[in-house]
């Protein structure tokens, strides 16, 4: 299994641990990630807020690179996934936009490049049973709240989630790793996204609500698939709500028995190591 790996800008800075853990679990599982250092930013919220065509042309440039490599794209970042999928849909369905973008990005769209979130690639292409079989250190005793947020699931016609109000893939994955996914009702609520930077108080209100609800549901940690969610959960919470959050890839890594977990957990603003140590027998 081989993909064009699109980390996105956050995974080179604020979400480094997401990048490390994603690469490591893919290596361990035998999934080959090909990277072309010419990839550019997807434009994120800023591009679609100010300039519609730019918000399609930037992801299209990356689709062009993947097309050149003859590979489908996999990206851990929920936000990049969303932008890439949108651009792909416009290229596929809107002839006028396609002509404009083909001219701007100097390529001929073939429609052959598929776009997957890493979560979906693991669940539907690689297979959860195969992941379960590779688990060496089950996360027994760990109770988590799976947090999808917005961009991985919405809008469903772009993301392909058939049950956008009740997604289950992360819960199923977490169960295969041996952890317990608690039921809670804030799984697809918004964390505030880029408002974490421009209106931090607004984000704090949303994040506090999420953390409180997760705690009430009996979770010891949250599991995310988005760098924006993760940084808001860690940075914008009120200080007393110190529930750790994991990228789902980090939990997979621990369960696969990857010892390098030391490399990245110290990067968290809410250190999850005490929790992990309380669960896993030493060594």
């Amino acid at each position: 299994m081989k993909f064009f790996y699109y980390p996105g800008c956050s995974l080179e800075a604020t979400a480094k641990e997401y990048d490390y853990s994603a690469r490591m679990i893919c290596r361990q599982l035998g999934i080959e990630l090909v990277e072309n250092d010419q990839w550019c930013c997807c434009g994120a919220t800023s591009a679609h807020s100010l300039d519609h065509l730019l918000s399609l042309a930037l992801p299209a440039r990356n689709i062009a690179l993947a097309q050149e490599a003859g590979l489908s794209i996999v990206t851990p970042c929920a936000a990049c996934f969303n932008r890439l999928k949108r651009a792909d849909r416009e290229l596929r369905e809107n002839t006028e936009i396609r002509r404009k973008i083909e001219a701007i990005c100097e390529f001929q769209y073939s429609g052959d490049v598929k776009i997957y979130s890493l979560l979906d690639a693991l669940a539907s292409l690689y297979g959860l049973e195969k992941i379960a079989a590779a688990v060496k250190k089950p996360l027994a005793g760990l109770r988590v709240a799976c947090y999808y947020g917005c961009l991985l699931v919405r809008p469903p016609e772009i993301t392909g989630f058939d049950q956008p109000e009740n997604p289950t893939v992360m819960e199923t994955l977490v169960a295969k790793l041996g952890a317990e996914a608690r039921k809670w009702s804030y799984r697809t609520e918004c964390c505030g996204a880029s408002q974490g930077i421009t209106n931090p108080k607004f984000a704090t209100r949303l994040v506090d609500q999420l953390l409180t609800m997760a705690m009430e549901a009996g979770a010891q940690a949250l599991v995310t698939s988005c760098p924006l969610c993760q940084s808001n959960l860690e940075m914008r919470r009120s200080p007393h709500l110190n529930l750790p959050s994991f990228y789902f890839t980090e939990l997979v890594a621990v369960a696969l028995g990857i010892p390098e977990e030391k490399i990245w957990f110290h990067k968290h603003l809410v250190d999850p190591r005490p929790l992990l140590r309380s669960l896993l027998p030493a060594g």
Partner: protein
Amino acid sequence: MRSPDLYPALPEKVREKSGQPIELCFQCQKCASGCPMGERADYLPSQIIRMLQLGLTERALQSSSIWLCPSCETCSARCPNGIKIAAVMDVLRAMAVLRDFAAKNKEPVFHRVFLKSIQNRGRVHETLILIQYKLKVRDLFSDAVTGLKMFKRGKLPLFAKKVKNKKIMKRIFAGAAQAQG
């Protein structure tokens, strides 16, 4: 709600640019009830759509709602009439900036800094844009402690990778600007 638009063609423009059937809204409030902005913004998404129906586009363009909206897409996913309200919000934001309705808002300042970074480097230099944004809105200290914690953890690197092919980035930005203009 008096004072209809000076530009009566504006609602039609929003409709055309967003491709959304704004006229279908029957004010069921489904979008509003799931909207995380709640009472924080001047108007709920349902009210923004109503304004557009009534020809009060300028009021929508001046609202805090269009900038506080984090594009969570809850409204779009739930509207029974298939109106992608989040797409309407995008059009309103772009229009507000082009027509100078957003001079006092700090959110477009952030978006411009962000896009400039992509234009210059092909990627966003997260450390640099945070500092540039904070300088522009004169708020260097509110996040200093968190920033330092991030820096110590290597999450705000001073050096970030760039895309070597500058020409293609130039072309993408120029091409998009031309199409918008």
